[in-house]
């Protein structure tokens, strides 16, 4: 499903140059939940953004279902993201003034569909947020917020779910719930790539890769 080949990404700041990705390759099959574990600053977020069509690598290739997002124009790539990729971040990144329902429905603006509203309510119900549909994010617990973000990521039935430290701001119980939902999505046939420094992720993932200083450690995938 997702194939990442030899990704290289170097940040050139004014003060220093950082090689955030140094020839990273990995593959995530449909129905697979892969966790990438590594210390802070090793390049996990960079890998995730590159895989999600948000950050063009300096070298290497990203292929999702045989398609290279970086071969597309920026607007076509945005449409590709809307259709193929779901994102979950540590900071949730919910829109503060939209209700739970509207937040979950935000991707439907990028990819309109007739049954968006129905599916949004389904996800909200499945994640135990039915009575929260009309609340704004500030009225929710962090665990609930991350479940809203997850529902939003899943609305357009993406092929790939990318999660960047989704449990970083959660208590262990909420973290477990979120990781459980990720595993469930994989079980339903989706590909999940989780990057985290939290060892708890490994317990839910089918496969765990280790990363350090922009490289994969157990470079056999």
């Amino acid at each position: 499903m997702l194939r990442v080949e030899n990704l290289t990404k170097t940040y050139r700041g004014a003060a220093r140059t950082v090689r955030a990705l140094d020839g990273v390759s990995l593959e995530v099959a449909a129905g697979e939940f892969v966790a990438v574990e590594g210390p802070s600053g090793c390049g996990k977020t960079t890998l995730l953004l590159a895989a999600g069509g948000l950050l063009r690598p300096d070298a290497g290739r990203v292929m999702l279902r045989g398609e290279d997002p970086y071969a597309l124009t920026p607007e076509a790539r945005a449409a590709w993201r809307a259709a193929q990729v779901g994102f979950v971040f540590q900071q949730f990144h919910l829109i503060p003034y939209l209700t739970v329902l509207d937040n979950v429905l935000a991707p439907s603006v990028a990819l309109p569909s007739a049954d968006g509203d129905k599916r949004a309510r389904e996800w909200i119900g499945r994640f135990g947020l039915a009575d929260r549909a009309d609340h704004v994010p500030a009225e929710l617990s962090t665990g609930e917020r991350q479940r809203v973000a997850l529902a939003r990521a899943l609305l357009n039935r993406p092929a790939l779910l990318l999660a960047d430290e989704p449990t970083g701001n959660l208590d262990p119980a909420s973290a477990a719930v979120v990781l459980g939902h990720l595993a469930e999505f994989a079980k339903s046939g989706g590909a999940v790539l989780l990057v985290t420094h939290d060892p708890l992720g490994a317990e839910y993932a089918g496969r765990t890769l280790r990363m350090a200083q922009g490289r994969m450690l157990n470079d056999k995938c």
Partner: protein
Amino acid sequence: MTLWRLVIKEIAYRKLNFALAVLAVLVAVGCLVAELTLLRAHEVRAERQSDAQDARTRQRVGRLADDYRVITKQLGYNVLILPAKQDLGRFYAQGYAGETMPEEYARRLSESPLITVQHLLPSLQERIEWPERKFPIILVGTRGEVPQGHRNPKDPIQPLVAPGTMVVGRVVAERLGLEEGKEAVLFGRRLAVAKVHPPRGNEDDVTVWIDLAEAQALLGKPGRLNAILALSCLCAEATPEGIRREITTALDNDVQVLELSAAAATRRAARLRASVHADETVAAQEAGRAELRLVREALAAWIIPLVVIGATVWVGALAFGNVRDRRAEIGILRAIGWRARQILAVLLAKAVAGGLAGGAVGYAAGFALAAAWDVHEAAAGDAAGASALFDPGLLAAAVFLAPILAAAASLVPALLAARQDPAVVLREE
């Protein structure tokens, strides 16, 4: 979820930012509308006043003509006495007689026992080029009445142009830079400008009146006249023919006599006397109004650009602040697949909404302000009135242009935000 829903929710969420943008547009539109409406009020009132003035003037002239007819019946006839040799065709074409006659005729007429003349106004008139200034003028030498030998005039006509002075028409004054109190040299003679006439819209505007004797000297026609205006002439046989016959006879058949209509006589008398009518007050009023209008227009000329630029900068700065606050929000929307143009549409829609609200409320505020000011400024019952002030074009311009201006002011920040790289904010932890 639609773009519009997001726009409206965001406006409700960041009320202050939106309110300040609306306020900027409101102030700008309000100022402009108030300013333009006041100018309109001014125009409406001026028009009404000048209409009223016209009506009054016409009425007065009508009354005057009536009076004159009556007076003519009672007091005699108005005639213009020209040299016998004068060709009348040329006289009418030229506006004055080219031929001359002795000044002494005026005295003889006044002393004639057979004719009584209430007012006797001798003059010498010529179209010349002011030699020192190379400017064509009509030079009129005039003097007061010739005293009647055997009676005292009841309503004397004052000599208006004293020796050593001149009275000039407006065009002459403007072209030659003459002002009351200044001096000018005419045919080598230094004359003080006693008076500058307000514009009259006829040949008076290019006329210079001076003392008769001086005119005779300057024109090289000492002791000569080219016309005598005789008003209220009476004789034993009170008919036009009788008057004509008596005058011609008294002056050795060396003159011809034209009977003037009341209006023509009035005009001619007025011109010769260089008198100033109530028209001057009208002119002064109009000048005052024109001046006020000029001040307002000048004010508008710098207020309008200032206000527009100020509001544009203000709205632009608010838009910058707004997109900076929304970096994370815009980043995530881009990440989940919103197109750059959808972000742009959201940001510009907000600007347009602010412009529309500011434009509409600003129009209402500006209009109300101007209408109130108009009532305050106008004399009782003289206000232009709201219905006369309402200009649908201005309303349309306000609600149409304000959103465009607001969108234009927000365009740069909106474009920057739409092009913002979502990876940058998403990488931040």
